[in-house]
């Protein structure tokens, strides 16, 4: 009897020990995102999208790598939207949590230093939202899912030439904002290259705190451009557009992704309806996989996913694709991380919900941007995607 009990006990213990070993092995991916600080909404959107993806894959038994199924383990760490915290968070994820790849940081302020850590430690990093070229520059381990600041210029040029039938243009930009100034200059170069020298009829600037644009607009309107390119923040757009209308301008405007705030319409009102701007993705009027994603996200979290959520979804799926391409998980961290990098480099083309993309030598996606039109109800509706030539 006593023996039997002992035997049963041993079997029990053996079984208890065996259970974890028998469960599917896991793949750890770290998320370096701002859950507190200035932009907590960005971190929240990233986490929401990632949780939805994890539930999908783990619900289906896990991710298949080299003929074996692995469960996903996502570790979310808060970088407080600070550059120095992004560095410590990256180190924590890489050394303590032993992640195989990192998603984030999101904004360039954190992604540029965070990318340095990932690159130095030999861990694949994909930033969903960062648009600053420095994030991936000369860092073979670092990738991103968003297009670059210098890419939007060509998007605006190509779209406007095609859709507005534009032969001439004018630019009004914010002199003290590097984003706006850089984009304006790129736009001017490309437009003149495409349409001939001198076709940018006016190239005018203003200050960040300016409220009156009548002098610049009078100058622009007197040159009669086919459209005005305004790579400005949404709060200035809301002043510029109505003022141009009050100076008798009836033509088109073209904007950039800095227009894409839901606050644009509460500030600008009717004057901005019908205008176009380029952005990462359009929630209203989306089709196919993008629409499925939006509907599911809405059902789960009760709000329309913004561009960060969609880009995080894509960034995470790109990493998973890289892991699958890598062949098999050996359990040796250094070897596995290297395999992921190899797998990432093998991605020839990736069908994301923010568009198809492939990576160039710098780890930047070559992908189409979306041009949206502001509808009569104030929604940002998909017009067309514009691809780099």
């Amino acid at each position, binding site marked *: 009897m006593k023996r039997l009990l002992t035997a049963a006990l041993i079997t029990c213990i053996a079984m208890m020990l065996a259970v974890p070993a028998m469960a599917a092995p896991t793949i750890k991916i770290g998320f370096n995102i701002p859950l507190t600080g200035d932009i907590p909404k960005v971190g929240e959107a990233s986490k929401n999208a990632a949780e939805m993806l994890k539930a999908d894959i783990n619900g289906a038994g896990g991710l298949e790598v080299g003929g074996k199924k692995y469960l996903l383990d996502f570790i979310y760490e808060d970088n407080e939207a600070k550059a120095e915290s992004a560095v410590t968070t990256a180190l924590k994820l890489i050394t303590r949590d032993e992640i195989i790849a990192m998603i984030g940081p999101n904004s360039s302020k954190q992604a540029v230093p965070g990318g340095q850590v990932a690159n130095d430690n030999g861990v694949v990093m994909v930033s969903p939202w960062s648009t600053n070229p420095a994030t991936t520059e000369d860092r073979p381990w670092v990738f991103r899912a968003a297009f670059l600041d210098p890419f939007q210029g060509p998007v605006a040029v190509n779209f406007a030439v095609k859709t507005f039938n534009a032969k001439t243009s004018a630019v009004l930009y914010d*002199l003290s904002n590097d984003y706006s100034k850089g984009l304006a200059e790129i736009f001017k170069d490309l437009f003149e290259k495409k349409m001939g020298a001198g076709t940018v009829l006016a190239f005018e600037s203003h200050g960040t705190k300016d409220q009156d644009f009548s002098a610049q607009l*009078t100058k622009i309107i007197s040159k009669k451009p086919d459209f005005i390119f305004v790579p400005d923040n949404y709060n200035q757009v809301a002043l510029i557009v109505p003022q141009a209308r009050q*100076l008798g301008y009836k033509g088109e405007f073209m904007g950039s992704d800095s227009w894409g705030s839901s606050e644009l319409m509460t500030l600008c009102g009717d004057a901005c309806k019908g205008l176009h701007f380029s952005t990462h993705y359009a929630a209203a009027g989306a089709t196919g996989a993008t629409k499925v994603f939006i509907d599911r996200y809405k059902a789960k979290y009760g709000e329309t996913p913004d561009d960060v959520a969609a880009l995080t979804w894509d960034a995470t799926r790109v990493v998973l694709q890289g892991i699958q391409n890598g062949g098999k998980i050996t359990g040796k961290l250094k070897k596995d991380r290297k395999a992921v990098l190899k797998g990432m480099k093998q991605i020839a083309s990736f069908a994301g919900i923010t568009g198809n993309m492939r990576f160039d030598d710098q780890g930047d996606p070559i992908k189409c941007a979306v041009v949206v039109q502001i509808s009569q109800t104030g929604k940002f509706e998909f017009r067309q995607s514009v691809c780099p030539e």
Partner: protein
Amino acid sequence: MLVSIIQNIINALQWGSFYALIALGYTLVYGVLTLINFAHGDVFMVGAYIAFFVSTFLLTTIGLPGWVVLALCIPLTMILTSMVGVTLERIAYRPLRKKGAHRLYVVITALMCGLILENANLALLGASRKAFPPLIEVYVYNIGGVIFTNLKIAVIITAILVFLFLQWVVTKTRVGMAMQAISYDKFAVPLMGIPLDQIIVVTFVLGSGFAGLAGLLFAMSYPILDPYMGALIGWKAFIAAVVGGIGDIRGAFLGGFLLGAVEILVVAFFPSTYRDLIAFTVLLAILTWKPTGLFGIAQTTKI
């Protein structure tokens, strides 16, 4: 070319009107107290917010038509904003004056009052901007290629009327005479039976009231409000008042239009990148040529 010049002059008149309206407030207070009321730009900001709350309340809660709201909004905004100005004078400037503090300390107090107004607004209402509701239908007129709106014309006419009114108050009424007397000799005036404090309160009522009117018109013309909107325009209006000769009503009025014209015309004829550089070089040149400003007379009666 002629069309473009006229167009730019209309733009400059509108933009200069705001400088002039705010500069008048600086100059009134300076004329009476020799105090640079650096909170004045933020009083203008408060005026714009008061106009915002009064008009949204009348439009949405009571549901009055736009023009009625505007007609009610003008006096209400002016009264409420002048109360803000008078409150500042009562709790910040008067105690220092009674204690005989040096003018420098009062100026620093004024700067702090401005910051308090800005940050109180930020703390109470948050950093997000407010959109001012359209009160009147804006019509765009085109006469021979020169384009203007009814709002623009209204702003310019209002600025001129306010100037004429203040000029009349200061030179023709008993209160105005008392103001001039105070600026002439602050110590002898109470001995003549002129109530010093009351005259100072009237000065602040006038200055802040018209800053409130400027805030309302500004919010109608540039319908996005944020807590820092008064800071830069306030500084520039102060410069306008100095260039015109601070302490002189005509100086503030002309200085405001001069600054507006310089800013607009520089953009019209030079690359806009150089706007502030050229505009302020011109103003510096004027001050070097006439350090007391266009209408200023060194150390004599002001206002």
